[in-house]
């Protein structure tokens, strides 16, 4: 089930009503209902893959309990490796099997050996990269004695499969989300209303911005040989807004929906396109994944400590793995490596933590230096996004060759004025709301009710009337 569908518009009020009716009874029953609702939500896409979620849930639940019971370090290590093996094994099989087979075949062919590959026609289960990482973090935290394992299988199953964030995050940590299943939830008007606002804004980002950008992005990327450098550059900019609107829109809807049910999820995007350097961008983009890699990969590798060579190695590893997490294609790996290359100079010059706060924190407009920083950072991300969007390395390189040709100085062949106006309006809202967790949050305090309602009305009508052709969320494929 996807958030921008009629199915979800029917599903959500029904689940909301039953959930709060059950609030007077046992907490376990309410949690069980969350599990059932989440399984229905997931099974709507393909019920066969529910078995994977249930399997992953059971493995990590049992591993968690035994990790706590075992005193011997060797046994604890074995248990942790069981969890890592199962979760990454599932991910590796469903997501990377054919990629590795194809690359092995290519490598052997290169050295003159011809082998017959055994590839499989594998469907990638939606959300597998998200829920496996979530359950993995649970086992690792218990292993590190940072978390007490739960003995409540229902609460744990609800934590793993919680439907708002099951298929595309945010990747929640057990330390934040799991305890919320132990406590009785109470309905909070302000929280729920703001959740509603966040859903509205998320839908706007997805349906109006991302889906409308998608139309032009697909046209430009599919026939990139036919267009000038300026048009392709514009295609890259549109893709930057498409992926941001799509993914941060999903996160906003997920967080907003959770708030309707009395849960608080962590912020996943914090206005990344207002970042003044790449380091800041990565603190603001897909925060739940970046912090996951930071805590479970970068820091164990040594992080920014040690020799310069180690620092460079660690940065490359974390960015390349992050790229590979997105998909089994060299384009994602290069995207990650390119971001590492952007990030390294800042780290080596110890300038990676210069821009920590919100841009123009105490003023309405940014300074000239900040504007320059924002534009350069955005430009760098657009170049990296071209790799991310391209279907092959060949396409990405050919695309960039045209971008950096003389034709970059011509007038773009595609000039969708209405879309550009929408993007400008969208950016204005994001700029005004940049200090808050989502762009509409501050409206609660500032403006009188009729004005607020007028704005909500316009946003809702634009979602219904100006939306692009309905598309699945991009991050479902990851």
């Amino acid at each position: 089930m996807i958030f921008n569908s009629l199915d979800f518009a029917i599903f959500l009020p029904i689940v909301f009503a039953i959930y709060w009716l059950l609030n007077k009874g046992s907490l376990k029953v309410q949690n069980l209902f969350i599990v059932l609702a989440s399984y229905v939500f997931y099974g709507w896409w393909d019920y066969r893959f529910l078995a994977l979620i249930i399997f992953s849930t059971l493995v990590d639940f049992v591993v968690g309990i035994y990790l706590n019971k075992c005193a011997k370090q060797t046994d604890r290590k074995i248990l942790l490796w069981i969890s890592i093996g199962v979760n990454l094994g599932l991910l590796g099989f469903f997501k990377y099997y054919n990629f590795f087979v194809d690359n092995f075949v290519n490598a052997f062919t290169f050295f003159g050996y011809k082998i017959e590959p055994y590839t499989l026609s594998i469907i990638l289960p939606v959300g597998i990269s998200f829920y496996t990482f979530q359950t993995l973090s649970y086992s690792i935290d218990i292993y590190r004695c940072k978390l007490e394992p739960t003995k409540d299988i229902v609460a744990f199953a609800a934590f793993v499969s919680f439907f708002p964030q099951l298929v595309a995050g945010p990747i929640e940590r057990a330390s934040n989300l799991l305890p919320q299943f132990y406590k009785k939830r109470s309905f909070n008007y302000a929280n729920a209303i703001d959740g509603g606002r966040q859903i509205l804004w998320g839908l706007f980002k997805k349906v109006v911005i991302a889906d409308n950008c998608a139309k032009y992005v697909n046209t430009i990327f599919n026939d990139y040989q036919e267009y000038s450098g300026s048009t392709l550059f514009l295609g890259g900019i549109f893709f930057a807004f498409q992926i941001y609107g799509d993914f941060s829109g999903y996160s906003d809807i997920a967080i907003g929906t959770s708030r309707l049910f009395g849960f608080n999820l962590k912020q996943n995007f914090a206005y990344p396109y207002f970042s003044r350097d790449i380091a800041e961008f990565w603190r603001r983009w897909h925060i739940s994944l970046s912090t996951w890699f930071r805590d479970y990969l970068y820091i164990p590798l040594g992080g920014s400590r040690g020799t310069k060579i180690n620092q460079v190695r660690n940065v490359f590893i974390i960015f390349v793995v992050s790229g590979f997490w997105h998909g089994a294609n060299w384009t994602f790996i290069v995207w990650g490596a390119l971001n590492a290359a952007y990030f390294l100079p800042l780290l080596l010059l110890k300038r990676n933590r210069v821009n920590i706060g919100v841009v123009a924190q105490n003023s309405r407009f940014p300074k000239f230096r900040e504007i320059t920083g924002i534009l350069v950072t955005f430009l760098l991300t657009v170049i990296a996004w071209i790799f991310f969007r391209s279907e092959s390395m060949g396409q990405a390189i050919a695309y960039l060759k045209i971008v950096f040709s003389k034709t970059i100085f011509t007038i773009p062949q595609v000039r969708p004025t209405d879309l550009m106006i929408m993007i400008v309006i969208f950016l204005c809202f994001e700029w005004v709301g940049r200090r808050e967790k989502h762009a509409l949050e501050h409206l609660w305090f500032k403006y009188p009710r009729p004005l607020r309602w007028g704005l909500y009305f316009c946003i809702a009508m634009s979602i219904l009337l100006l939306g692009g052709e309905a598309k699945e969320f991009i991050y479902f494929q990851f």
Partner: protein
Amino acid sequence: MRRFLINIFLFVCLIGLSLYGLLQLHTNFYVKKFTNINKNYDIINLGTSHGNSFNYNMYKIDGGKFHRRGNSIYYDLQNYYYLKPHLKDSAIIILPLSYFSFGLDENSTDRGEINPFVNDFYRYLPRKSIYSYTPKREADVYLNEIKLNFFNLFEKSKKKEKIEISELDRNEILLDKVSKRVESHKKMGMYSSPQPNIAYLSELILDAKKNGYKPILVTTPYFKRYNEEFGNTWIKEHYYKYIDTLINQYQLVYLDYSDDERFSPNIELFKDPDHLNQIGKEKFSKVFFQDLNELGILKRIKLK
């Protein structure tokens, strides 16, 4: 909780009312025609765009044109049931058939990937009449209609430029179109097996006869080159074979103007290879009503 629910309810009502208001603008010509019926008809025609060849306005008669581009026989039948309460006793039902009519499937697939062909039917036909009805599709159709109405609000203010084309150029364009149209129509004529279409048409004819109406099969005039490109063999095999069966089985009146010498060779009567222009329509309607008079089907018809 109550306050939250009231606020959400009010907001949903506000949105719902606005959408309902937009829906009522009815900018869809076809839906408007079917939902604003305010008289009982002496004569109606169904069929594909070829049904546009009839001009009832010239005569003192209550006539209604209920054809539709690429319409399938299945939806002719459903439209007939929908229109039945608006027909006078012994009304004439003209069934203009096209060469491709017997090969169209219920959902008339020659409409690209999205296949919006059945969308308009969702707007006025009862659910049971819609082939492979789904509530999801219905919701999408309503939302699309609202979107269309919303955008048409702005479109109306834009003036459309009229392009003047000389008669010589027009004829050349028309001739260029022949092969493409024939190719596309042959494709349309092969989508489905003819049996279901014959069954739908039989049902329509039988019901019309049972209720005292007069069903008439008609083939409107086509440009000579259009007929030639189709070829006699194709037309016989995919069209006349079934027409003949129906005529014999139900003792029907069939008026065939497809290759009529009064129309077919005259390019100036056509706007494209298989549709008459305004002059052609008027000439054809005179001939058609005269034939109905001579056959005794429609008597005492007067010009306005």
